[in-house]
């Protein structure tokens, strides 16, 4: 009897053994003529490649000691682990951290990875404001956006921009309040 239970598909990444390419690489050498036309000078993919035969010594190099992994480090799934050293700047945390963890489940070749990271960056900005407020810091756009310099070197342009902005805001407010007044003027019994 045929079973209805579907076999769970495993992603290919989980089935391919690590470093398999080194085993495959040994086989073409048995093919007559293998590599006889290879010309190390003809390699436009490298900026002035310094050929030293190290191309395939992938696992054999001397690695530095591992920096203690004393914080959460998100790493690309295109490598098995973290690098021997890493930055210490800003480990993932909060909602943006959760979004980043999700993003790092996808490879660098996917839009999901990059677009999710951009989303996390935007969320992170609001978290930063909350963090500032929690520490009693009130963000100061005049200083943080460099408007001091703008006032110094482009005063006329800045005033013009501010005037246009103020006009747009005033226009929007007038438009909205006008609508409200019209509502207020409607006869009271109209909706009865």
């Amino acid at each position, binding site marked *: 009897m045929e079973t209805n239970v579907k076999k769970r598909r495993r992603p290919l990444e989980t089935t391919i053994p690590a470093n398999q390419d080194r085993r495959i690489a040994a086989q073409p050498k048995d093919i007559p003529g293998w590599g006889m036309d290879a010309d190390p000078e003809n390699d436009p993919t490298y900026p002035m490649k310094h050929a030293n035969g190290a191309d395939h010594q992938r696992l054999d190099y001397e690695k530095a000691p591992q920096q203690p992994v004393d914080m959460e480090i998100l790493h690309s799934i295109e490598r098995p682990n973290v690098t021997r050293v890493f930055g210490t*700047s*800003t480990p993932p945390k909060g909602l943006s951290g959760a979004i980043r963890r999700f993003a790092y489940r996808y490879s660098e070749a996917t839009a999901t990875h990059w677009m999710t990271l951009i989303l996390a960056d935007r969320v*992170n900005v609001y978290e930063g*404001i909350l963090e500032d407020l929690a520490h009693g810091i009130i963000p100061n756009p005049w200083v943080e*956006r*460099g408007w001091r310099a*703008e006032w110094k070197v482009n005063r006329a342009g800045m005033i013009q921009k501010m005037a246009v902005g103020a006009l747009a805001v005033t226009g929007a407010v007038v438009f909205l309040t006008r609508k409200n007044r019209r509502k207020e003027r409607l006869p009271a019994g109209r909706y009865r």
Partner: protein
Amino acid sequence: MLAMNFRGPFRIRADRNRPDPEIKHPNDAIVRVTRSLICGSDLHLYHGMVPDTRVGMTFGHEFTGIVEAVGSGVQKLKVGDHVLVPFNIACGSCPFCKQELYGNCHESNPEATAVGGFFGYAHIAGGYDGGQAEYVRVPYADVSPTVIPEGMDIEDAVMLTDVTPTGYQAAEQGGIQPGDTVVVFGAGPVGIMAARCSWLFGAGRVIIIDHLEYRLEFARNYAKCEAYNFKDMDDPVVFLKKATDWYGADVCIDAVGCEASGDALQTILGKKLLFEAGSATALHWAINSVKKGGIVSVIGVYGPPWNLVPMGSLMNKGITLRGNQASVKRLLPKLIDHVMAGRLNPKGLITHRVPLEEVPDAYHMFSAKRDNIIKPLLIPPRAYAA
């Protein structure tokens, strides 16, 4: 310590309460910054174009400094050395470093495999804090940091950490042959340096394209090249074809990257909606303006790895497309020689010298292209401390 603190797009702070860096690895050093620069690629971070730029980071990948402390594994550097620190963080022993591809080190950036680790450049470059600060942690201190040669101006030295090698490599990647016509898109610091360095490879003619008159004028004087404003052209590709006997340039250099101006569709798709890796207008122009069989060298920064690139032209025209982050360590001996011999004058690109305390103003000025700015230099308050 005092350091730049990123709070979100277009919002940064000169923060006096940043924690001092610590030695985290035996091969680390701590460097007291004497000079740092703001790079055009910092602006991509500042504008929110590069994914995984986390709030609280300190930017800055171009700096010089004095070694204040070293880890137990450091052998070449010693306390008191005044070093220029290349922007690449490179282990020196992985297969890529062994091939002098220091910009592609495999042991310095866990977050991405496409690029190596850089100082102060988002977490897709390893999440390291950068040099727009009083102190920096410098990993793999024995590999890239280089003692500033005696007699070299500190401003020349700091310009050798990124902008000069990047401009030089842009020209080198172009495979320029004697007499070649080279077109550089973008008259920012790197584009101007690429135009200047093209002569070192024997270019017969160098053309630079931009839309800001003051930068074009600067390029004419500094790089001794032809400079044209694309806003004055109906179609830059047709202009360049005509300027090259209708054949196209031998070599085109994209020194712009993801924030190119000049095409409304690219601006909306790439810069506003982020549906692709920024606006690829310069890359389009480069591919379409190069001759058949020519070389396009890309040194502009693109964020995520997809773009609306004219692959049809690439294939049909037989173009070679080359790009990479500069391998600063590989290029340093040659560039130090050029600077010491007076063949290159990198500090000539610096137009603004700003105290680190005014870093938000410097970013704004550079981003908004105010006051004829080309390259801003930051000076930390402890730069001159004994």
